[in-house]
């Protein structure tokens, strides 16, 4: 069996499953956030009753992150709905925006959205937070009410996005009926050369199979090339499995995985027992292809979908209005450090926005010193507009006052994950997806630029 089949078999109490089988799986973690949480809670109460209790208060993780730093009253209310539910159910893992469990969240527009407005429990983008707070464990089943939930597959976890109704069903029962997907294998050889990042790998693969090339399928990443990839790299890759239509993306578990997971579960006191799924000798795939990742070049996905693959060096004719670094895909500490390597001591030529994915990233950027100057200040001095309020921000547009949102038909190069029309705001705006290196180099020149010119 493939990694996905092994995990689904185990979770459904079977010795063997095949693609196409429909199985009831026991859920290890259900994650929801402020955009889909209130609707999920609504479904749960409508179907199981106003006084119903969730199946397991330690297996539900609630992470407000989408529409937080906005004056939109309905969005602020939605965070309060999450808090009421977390209190009522005794949910242990709720990363609230404010510290007062009886309080109400109200964004203060007068303070602006650059200055810190969150309390100490707040974490930031849900997928990054699941990893950081010790909720990703090899061999387990994780569902989330967000399409980029597939990111958790970096940890050898079966993880996929679901809607409110399915999530409401899990809240009441701890189970979900799912179809076992066929598996596509992407076998990596080599290691990333200088100037290339994991983002280039996944943009290359999506271009290879098309924006719907993995629909209904699992994407399994293996091979000797995996060893050189950090957990951040692997998260960037699995995060975008959905951009090829994939049900999930998954890596094997190795020492890199175990070191990360053991450190995070110990730091947070979360469950630290798990059984990884390892590679079988008898796997069968619907697609199997080897990729030499040392031969890749900086890659861009052009407007209007993630499958529009081009090389950065061919795209110098595209003049840009804006650059953006942030999100689960491109807002990690390693992403900002790569970005800073390029812009350090220089000045960006176009409006450039930076949104850390989590409060931890924010702390690390402020604490990391290069020649006596923090990376945070290096970025600010290069002209990058930064916010101390981590979250999804303009990656998905959001309410009109969202930091970095495109409220006019602009062209933006972005380290985020999706570029369908209107994704980052205005419906006539255009988004070009690229690695933090490529976004940084392009911010310096005002056109799409191969970052190897700056390294």
């Amino acid at each position: 069996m493939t990694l996905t089949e092994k995990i689904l078999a185990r979770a459904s109490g079977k010795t063997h499953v095949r693609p196409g089988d429909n199985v009831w799986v026991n859920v290890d973690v259900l994650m929801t956030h402020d955009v889909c949480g209130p609707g999920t809670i609504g479904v749960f109460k409508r179907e199981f009753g106003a006084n119903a209790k969730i199946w397991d208060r330690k297996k539900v993780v609630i992470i407000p992150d989408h529409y937080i730093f906005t004056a939109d009253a309905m969005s602020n209310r939605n965070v309060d709905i999450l808090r009421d539910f977390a209190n009522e159910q005794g949910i242990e893992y709720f990363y609230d925006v404010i510290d007062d469990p009886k309080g109400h969240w109200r964004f203060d527009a007068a303070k602006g959205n650059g200055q810190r407005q969150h309390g100490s429990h707040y974490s930031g983008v849900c997928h990054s937070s699941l990893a950081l707070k010790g909720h990703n464990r090899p061999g387990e089943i994780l569902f989330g009410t967000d399409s980029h939930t597939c990111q958790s597959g970096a940890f050898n976890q079966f993880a996929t996005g679901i809607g409110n109704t399915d999530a409401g069903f899990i809240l009441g029962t701890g189970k979900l009926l799912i179809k076992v997907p066929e598996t596509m294998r992407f076998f990596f050889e080599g290691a990333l050369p200088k100037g290339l990042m994991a983002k280039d790998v996944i943009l290359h693969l999506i271009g290879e199979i098309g924006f719907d090339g993995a629909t209904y399928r699992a994407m399994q990443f293996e091979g000797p090339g995996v060893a050189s990839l950090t957990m951040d790299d692997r998260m960037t890759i699995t995060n975008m499995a959905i951009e090829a239509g994939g049900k999930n993306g998954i890596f094997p578990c190795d020492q890199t995985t175990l070191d990360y997971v053991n450190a995070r579960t110990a730091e947070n006191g979360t469950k630290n027992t798990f059984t990884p799924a390892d590679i079988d000798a008898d796997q069968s795939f619907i697609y199997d292809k080897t990729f030499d990742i040392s031969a890749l070049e900086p890659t861009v996905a052009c407007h209007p979908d993630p499958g529009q693959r081009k090389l950065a060096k061919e795209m110098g004719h595209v003049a840009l209005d804006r650059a953006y670094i942030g999100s689960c895909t491109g807002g990690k500490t390693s992403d900002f450090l790569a970005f800073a390597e390029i812009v350090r001591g220089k000045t960006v030529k176009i409006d450039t926005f930076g949104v850390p994915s989590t409060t931890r990233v924010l702390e690390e950027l402020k604490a990391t010193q290069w020649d006596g100057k923090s990376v945070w200040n290096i970025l600010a001095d290069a002209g990058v507009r930064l916010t101390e309020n981590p979250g999804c921000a303009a990656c998905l547009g959001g309410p009109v006052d969202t930091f970095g949102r495109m409220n006019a038909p602009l062209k933006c190069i972005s380290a985020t994950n999706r570029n369908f029309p209107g994704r980052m705001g205005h419906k006539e705006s255009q988004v070009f997806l690229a690695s933090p290196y490529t976004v940084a180099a392009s911010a310096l020149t005002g056109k799409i630029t191969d970052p190897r010119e700056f390294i």
Partner: protein
Amino acid sequence: MAHSITSKVFVVRDNIDTDQIIPAQYLALVPTIAEEYEKLGSYALIGLPDDQYPEKFVPEGGMKTPYQIVIAGRNFGCGSSREHAPIALGAAGVEAVVAESFARIFFRNCVATGELYPFDSGLRLCDIVKTGDEATLDFDHDTLTVNGNTYQLKPLGDVRPVIDAGGLFNYARKSGMIAAK
């Protein structure tokens, strides 16, 4: 469920993602709150580019669409997992989307909510049919008849009874998977 419906169709092309079905700025609306559910319907397909789609799916200032059937190309509903997408279409009055192919989570959300029937046509009806054409969708024979031609759609199979029952919960109760209310 009626055995057939006859309605004007609204035709869209490939890759209509969830942002075009219901733009992110409206996601603060909570679908299980009745008035917010209705409001979601009024914004259905408002994210379509105006230059490519001059006809409004929901008339300006209106709450419902005159089109109960949507015809689409490849990969309809790609992008986010927001259940607001099938709900917005359902709340606007859509009964079925007939697409060349669907993105997985959108398809699943149609079934789980029971909001609408996601029929796979396997062929590019979006090249043959125009917005405003009148079509009849026959639920007994899984066919779509439009402009004098009848097209066979792929049967929905296992998920059909779930949508017929009105979604996952009704189906699970009916079949004894979870306790009756």
